């Protein structure tokens, strides 16, 4: 729901308030707020109505309540304060246990997103226990539970669950501002927000729904209902199962496990329309993590394909999101991150992409960054990477005897370092590429001379043989780094064949380099079509004018 303001992609601002955490957790202050806030009638009515709709499973009405009324009421009454406490609400809705779990999930989500200072330790714990209640209710039932929720809600529920785990892991790693007692509580409750717990929930939802089998049958053109089983045929289980796969993708990525991240999506073709892929935020998030994992695996072609395809989709459906502001913020941020990642991939692996995506990358901010990276500005690589990467985390807390300090950045630093080592290995390639682009054939000795011009200081001490030798090493490296596994078909995104997908290629025949470039002819058609459409549009408007 109203999550956009401090979502995970914004970690820089996310927990800056934690240092003041003790103030908002202050019970006397909370008490004060409670006494001075009377629940408005409209909120009361809303809750009763909301609960009735949940019980009756009126999906369309629920969708509207969830997507519009709740954010609207939040804006009107709860911009800066939590929604009413559990006990206040319980009396209004006859202590309806299922509704109360759902209400509390929304209540905590709102605290995570909107309340200054973020959730207190106690609230983090309680939110976790509430998730346990929810998943126990859904998973331990003998037969499918009589609950139906809009798919968007289900997606945001799973996404939030992983987010709150991530948030807790970061919080736990910030030892510098913790008090004795807080640390004590953390250590004695190490089962809360434990990574295995989170994995277990997601895996259980996947298993319960038979979603893997369903996807397999669906991918081969069959009817997924034939293998869905008792639970998996219910929309609630089926979609929770599907979203849990995406949750696992995200969780594996956050832990730096790119192999599992891609593997978990077996039988899902990321850029293809399917009956499961109708929640834009879920599609976008999926592509972001998949593209990122590919980039880390040096599968640039696959990363570029994944990013361009989703960015194109976002470009075309932009108006759709405009009205839903809370989703909009997150989508915008993730879009910008993906343009950054795409820019990085295209610098490392130049390749033709869709013209309209190219157009965006020509805009000033991206263009400048790409230019700097092309000229070997490592700082630019690093800052683009850290801006655009997921907020990595460590699955376990810092050791008990750790010195006070901030350990929450360790995981990000590590992944950044792995990436930067890759960039460093490729540092000579852009220079070589820029020379090769000018020729169709070029003797090794000549290129070696060019290359040495930059570094040579003393003309007399020149050693051509040595220069050629070091050039050949760079050329071998060029070929090696530009030949990568590319997916073409198959159930798993891990599959693929070695291909050279970059636009410039070459081979060495003894001491001569033969270069093959990709020449793209100017595209006029698109340009003219756009102009014609624009002209017609103008013409039509002129005709409609009444003077």
């Amino acid at each position, binding site marked *: 729901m109203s999550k956009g303001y401090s979502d995970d992609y914004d970690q820089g601002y996310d927990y800056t308030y934690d240092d003041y955490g003790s103030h908002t957790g202050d019970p006397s202050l909370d008490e004060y707020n409670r006494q001075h806030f009377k629940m408005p009638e409209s909120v009361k009515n809303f809750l009763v109505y909301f609960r009735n709709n949940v019980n009756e499973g009126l999906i369309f009405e629920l969708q509207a309540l969830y997507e519009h009324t709740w954010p609207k009421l939040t804006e009107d009454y709860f911009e800066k304060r939590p929604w009413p406490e559990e006990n206040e609400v319980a009396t209004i809705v006859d202590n309806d246990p299922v509704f109360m779990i759902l209400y509390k999930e929304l209540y905590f989500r709102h605290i995570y997103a909107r309340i200054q200072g973020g959730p207190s330790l106690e609230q983090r714990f309680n939110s976790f226990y509430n998730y346990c209640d929810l998943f126990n209710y859904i998973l331990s039932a003998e037969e499918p539970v009589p609950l139906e929720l809009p798919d968007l809600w289900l997606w945001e529920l799973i996404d939030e669950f992983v987010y709150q785990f991530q948030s807790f892991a970061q919080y736990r790693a910030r030892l510098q501002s913790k008090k004795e007692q807080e640390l004590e509580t953390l250590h004695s409750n190490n089962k809360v927000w434990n990574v295995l717990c989170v994995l277990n929930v997601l*895996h259980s939802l996947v*298993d319960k729904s038979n979603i893997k089998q369903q996807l397999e049958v669906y991918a081969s053109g069959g009817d997924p209902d034939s293998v869905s089983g008792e639970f998996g045929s219910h929309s609630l289980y089926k979609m929770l199962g599907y979203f849990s796969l995406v949750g696992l993708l995200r969780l594996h990525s956050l832990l730096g496990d790119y192999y599992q991240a891609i593997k978990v999506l077996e039988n899902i073709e990321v850029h293809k329309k399917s009956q499961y892929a109708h929640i834009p935020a879920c599609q976008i998030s999926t592509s972001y993590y998949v593209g990122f994992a590919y980039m880390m695996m040096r599968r640039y072609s696959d990363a570029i394909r994944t990013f361009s395809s989703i960015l194109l989709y976002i470009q075309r459906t932009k108006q759709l999101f405009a009205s839903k502001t809370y989703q909009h913020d997150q989508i915008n941020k993730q879009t910008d991150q993906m343009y950054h990642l795409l820019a990085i991939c295209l610098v490392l692996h130049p390749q033709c992409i869709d013209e309209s995506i190219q157009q965006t990358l020509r805009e000033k901010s991206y263009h400048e960054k790409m230019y700097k990276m092309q000229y070997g500005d490592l700082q630019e690589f690093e800052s683009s990477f850290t801006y655009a990467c997921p907020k990595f985390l460590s699955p*376990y807390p810092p050791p008990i005897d750790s010195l006070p300090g901030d350990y929450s950045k360790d995981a990000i630093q590590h992944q950044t370092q792995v990436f930067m080592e890759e960039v460093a290995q490729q540092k000579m390639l852009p220079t070589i590429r820029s020379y090769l682009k000018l020729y169709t054939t070029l003797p090794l000795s000549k290129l070696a001379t060019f290359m040495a011009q930059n570094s040579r200081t003393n003309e007399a001490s020149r050693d051509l043989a040595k220069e050629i030798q070091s050039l050949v*090493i760079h050329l*071998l490296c060029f070929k090696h780094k530009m030949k990568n596994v590319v997916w073409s078909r198959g159930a798993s995104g891990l599959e693929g064949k070695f291909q050279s997908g970059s636009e410039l290629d070459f081979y060495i*025949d003894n001491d001569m380099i033969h270069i*093959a470039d990709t020449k793209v002819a100017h595209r006029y058609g698109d340009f003219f079509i756009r102009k*014609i459409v624009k002209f017609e549009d103008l013409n039509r408007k002129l005709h409609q004018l009444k003077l």
Partner: protein
Amino acid sequence: MAEAMKQTVARMLKGIERYNPDNLPTLQRYVEVQSRENSYDLEANLAVLKLYQFNPLSFNVEITCQILLKALTNLPHTDFILCKCLLNDKQLSQEPINQIVYLADILEQCDFQVFWTRIRTLPELTQSITGFVDSIRKFVCHVVGITYQTIERSHLAQLLGDVDDSTLKLWVKKYGWKEVAGNLIFIANQDENIKTKNINEKIDFENVGAIMASCR
């Protein structure tokens, strides 16, 4: 043995079972079997590193070294990067893991000469991995195979780690390369695969259909 274990291990990697620390002894033994018998199972090895990530106290330097070296034998695949991403800075800077990280770095840069010199000074580092040197030579041949049309004989021998004449002949034969006049070795006819591409604009009827329709 590796084949026999593969099934048992595959069961341990299913679903949530993958994170069960009780499986660690078996999985670690499987790593050693792979080293000894020159077989390879990336997924199982990543599962070991994952268990170390979740249970830092079980971290085993010896096994981690073997996993990393095995990842190098699977070059040009990027297995080594996948492994690196699951370890942390502190683990990677430990002896002799840092040595392996260095080897990976120079291999990735295709500086084979430095690699062979280095490996000669550290014979004990890789001796537990059966077929390690030949696996690296395979990687060298892969890179040569995609880069050269013809290559100087002596240069190839050097890239393969200053191999003697008979060894060189063996590798040339294995890859179907040919010795030709002038002390050269013919690798493949690259101009068939590596050609200049021209992407021309194609405008088909569908592209302009809408506009044509509106131009009545």
